[in-house]
């Protein structure tokens, strides 16, 4: 592999690997590959792994000696085989960018000297990479936001952001998967359910997936919402062959 991570202990039974590189799609791909590699080779030793942009935490069973685990890890050839469960998808996410659902779209537009329709067009254009899930259950940290849409976070976070809200915070864009406080500027809302505790996995989006936003009218939003309610909506998901 290109650049090995730096390992350190992070409390009693946790190891942390860090790549000192900053936010980068290639490095994040390496983080996820490393996570798969550990899952495949050390499933007995670990409880779980939490990947982030350029680091990952390995939560070890109490009986595992961290130092010994690291030695074994170093001695194991870094290889991963793609299994079906690691197949990644492009998930099409409907978003209504209409003002009821987009309280801050005018702020984003004026901060960047754009029209509202330009904001929508720049936001729906990219294929966003899901770097990892964090902050809230199912909340995707997405990479690939157009520089022309970067907008600082609000000075004071809002007490209540409705679930499904799509926001921009600095250079990041993401979806509030549950009702939550939040400081990002909200430019739309999706009717999809991003987190369902009764499903396995409970998160609609997984680290390594891709997201494509598409704009829907308020009428379509309501229709999709009803279809989700009665279980007839089919989320558009294509296999990613990148």
């Amino acid at each position, binding site marked *: 592999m290109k650049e090995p991570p730096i390992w350190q202990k*992070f409390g009693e039974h946790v190891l942390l690997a860090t790549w000192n590189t900053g*936010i980068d799609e290639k490095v994040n791909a390496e983080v996820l590959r490393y996570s798969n590699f550990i899952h495949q080779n050390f499933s007995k030793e670990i409880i779980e792994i939490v990947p982030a942009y350029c680091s990952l935490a390995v939560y070890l069973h109490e009986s595992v000696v961290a130092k010994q685990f690291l030695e074994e890890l170093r001695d194991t050839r870094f290889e991963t085989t793609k299994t079906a469960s690691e197949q990644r998808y492009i998930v099409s996410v409907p978003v209504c960018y209409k003002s009821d659902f987009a309280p801050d779209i005018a702020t984003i537009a004026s901060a960047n000297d754009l029209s509202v329709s330009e904001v929508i067009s720049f936001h729906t254009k990219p294929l966003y990479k899901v770097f990892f899930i*964090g*902050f809230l259950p199912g909340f995707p940290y997405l990479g690939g936001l157009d520089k022309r849409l970067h907008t600082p976070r609000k000075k004071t976070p809002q007490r209540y952001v409705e679930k499904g809200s799509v926001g921009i915070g600095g250079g990041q864009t993401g979806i509030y998967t549950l009702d939550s406080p939040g400081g990002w500027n909200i430019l739309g809302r999706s009717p999809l359910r991003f*987190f369902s505790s009764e499903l396995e996995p409970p998160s609609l989006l997984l680290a390594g997936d891709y997201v494509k936003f598409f704009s829907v009218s308020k009428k379509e939003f309501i229709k999709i919402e009803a279809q989700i309610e009665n279980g007839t909506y089919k989320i558009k998901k294509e296999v990613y062959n990148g």
Partner: protein
Amino acid sequence: MVKVISGGLYTTIQDLGRYGYRKYGVPLGGVMDSYSSRLANRLVGNNRTEAVMEITYIGPVLRFDIATEIAITGAGFSPTLNNIEIPLNTRIQIPEGSILKFGLPGYGQRAYLSVAGGFKTEYIMGSYSYHRGITLKPSIDTGDQLSIATYTNGQSEVTASVKIRRSYFTSSVIEAFKGPEFNSLSELFQQQLLNSVGVILPESNRMAYLLKGYETLSAKEIITAPVQPGTVQLMPSGRCAVLMRDAQTTGGYARVLQLTEKAINLLAQKRAGEEVQFKLL
């Protein structure tokens, strides 16, 4: 069934937490003071993984519609059974129809109530632990009915009782390892972090304890990275947060220290206004 006559301040069902779901952004959760909850389970002969009731500062009033055995551990409440005082840290027989009250704690702030065989409430993603957005309810309310395991007589022949050292609740020393960003702090800030006395702020909760007393320090934000219960975050403004059991799975503030499991348990019993000092291991 246990009927909740009064819900108390913040009463929840907790076990050891929700393992295996942190990569989906699901907080670990689980009992704040795992030492006391483990003791509660042990006293009634339960496995350490059984779900217990976590009681915070103002206890609930409960009616047991079936007979069972219980134990209450943790903070120094003065519980009564049918208005007769009962001891803490002791296995107690509960006849059908009994009313259990807690009163207020003289020391500490979280108590654990175990029942023989454990609470059998909503079980989701491998855990009974209540959590907003995960379980149907974030906490127990007046009027709730809680299922418990069917009680089979027999374990109750021997009296089980233990003594707890009071220093568990009074010690202000919070032991910690260096966190991933500890060495990025200047030597002066490292010393100040360890020599300052922190005061627990009232906003503290199951997600994080906020501490006052580190305002002269500062640490740069980091690229969002994994955090866990016991992670001490230092913000650019000098605000200091100790993440607790319901902490998010990732965070963007410098992780300067990592508490031991024991230190998390000790801190979980501390109230707003109490003082703490970090000690590096």
